[in-house]
């Protein structure tokens, strides 16, 4: 049985090279790491609420989505642009590589709306299954942006079921992929 120190020793092996350290430091100095604390004030987020639900509908059913207005398109591309510029880029490798649409169709041909899902996934589904909610909303969905210092936030309706499902998956899920749970910085 490895001692608790061994993991740190292994981490020593993992320590990245100086160039990588510099990259992260500069990212931190630039304030490019965000917190996922979510404001509870829903009135301020009404536009985003509508946007979230529209996207949610698009993911679920193609026919539920009316042709998008140019306003929506403009906001979406703006959000996507801001989102990609904030991604930390380690070692020159883009961590946002997702599977190309053609491959997706090959894998999941029967699934409707999947191309839409893949396209908007990086904007909408910045989902952290944060375990435990008080009266505040549960699964917060945050666009990884900062505009004028304020955080743009999409709020989900309080869905206790999502929370419990998420808490369940963290420990026990048949086709198990990791879900992280953590409490945001309590400050």
């Amino acid at each position: 049985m490895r001692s608790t120190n061994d993991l740190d020793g292994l981490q020593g092996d993992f320590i990245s090279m100086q160039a990588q350290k510099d990259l992260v430091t500069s990212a931190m100095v630039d304030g490019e790491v965000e917190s996922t604390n979510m404001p509870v004030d829903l009135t301020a987020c009404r536009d985003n609420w509508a946007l979230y639900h529209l996207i949610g509908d698009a993911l679920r059913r193609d026919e539920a989505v009316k042709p998008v207005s140019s306003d929506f398109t403009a906001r979406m591309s703006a959000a996507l642009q801001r989102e990609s510029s904030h991604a930390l880029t380690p070692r020159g490798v883009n961590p946002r590589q997702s599977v190309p649409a053609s491959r997706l169709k090959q894998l999941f041909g029967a699934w409707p709306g999947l191309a839409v899902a893949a396209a908007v996934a990086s904007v909408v589904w910045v989902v952290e299954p944060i375990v435990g909610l008080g009266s505040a909303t549960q699964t917060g969905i945050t666009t990884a942006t900062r505009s004028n210092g304020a955080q743009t936030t999409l709020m989900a309706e309080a869905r206790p079921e999502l929370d419990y499902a998420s808490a369940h998956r963290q420990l026990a899920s048949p086709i198990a992929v990791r879900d992280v749970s953590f409490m945001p910085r309590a400050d």
Partner: protein
Amino acid sequence: MTVYCSRFLAGFLIWLLSSGLAMALGQQSDAKAAELWLTRAQQAAKSLNYQGTFVHQRNGELRSFRLAHGLRQGDEVERLEVLDDAPREYLRVNDRVQCLIPDQQLVVIERQQQERFPALLMSGLDHITENYDLRVASDLQRVAGRSCVNMTIRPRDGFRPAYDLCVDQQTGLLLEAQMLDQRGTVLEHIAFSEIRVGDPIEQLALQPSWSTQSWRTVERTPKSIDLKSQGWFYQLPPGYQAVIQVQRSFKGGREVAHTVLTDGLATISIFIEPYQQNLSHHQKVGASTVGAVNLYGRKHESFWIMVVGEAPAQAVRMVAESLVRKGALHNR
């Protein structure tokens, strides 16, 4: 005439018996072959070197991941990168996992409680075959450019879902898995889109993307509990047993008892906590569904019970409705 008849009859009976026997044996060997593939898949996941990307689809969400796994001096080492949404990485040595969360500058360390893809089983194989019918298909499929053997795992009753697997013909590694409900609807789907098996893992593949020296580190060691000793009784669906029982802290200071039941593949969670009248999480009584997950909420005495699982609704409901605290019966 009679002699011919009886000889014919005898011959016919012998043929009937032997072919019936052969069929029974064939079925048995088919199930045995499937068991062997499943065992092999489990071992391959833990002992082989492999690197690749896989896609996980659930409830309309799609995420891709990059995985590197190998054995180093007898230890399992692994790095999992979340390629979509917020960047995350998981570094694992055996059952100790570091979760790197760059947007919080946080490292969460915890002990891995269950197997993760491409490992699959939560308990031994003998229980699996009691509850599921295992079959190996004769034709091969192709996943991630590799030939793989198709396996079907079908429930013997209505208390668990069905699975379709594809395991690599050459190495036995699980390449694709689907979970299906009673009607054959795909509830969850995971598959490698590209993979290399057997090559030694380079150090670079296991290095995290960020330097975490200045980050906060939180070690999570949930307290073990035992529902029974706390006075709870409940009915297990056939074939299920409790495998994890821990006390977890939810946000807002809620202490929740979390018990995990499994039949080896399917899992059901029981959450029990003190009831809070104004809490939104304690309002939804009865059955509900979130994608592949069935839930059942119930208030019992001063407790809130929520049972959750990728099992059919009747299994979830059965557990939820059967939960009772011993004190209730005697202290009226």
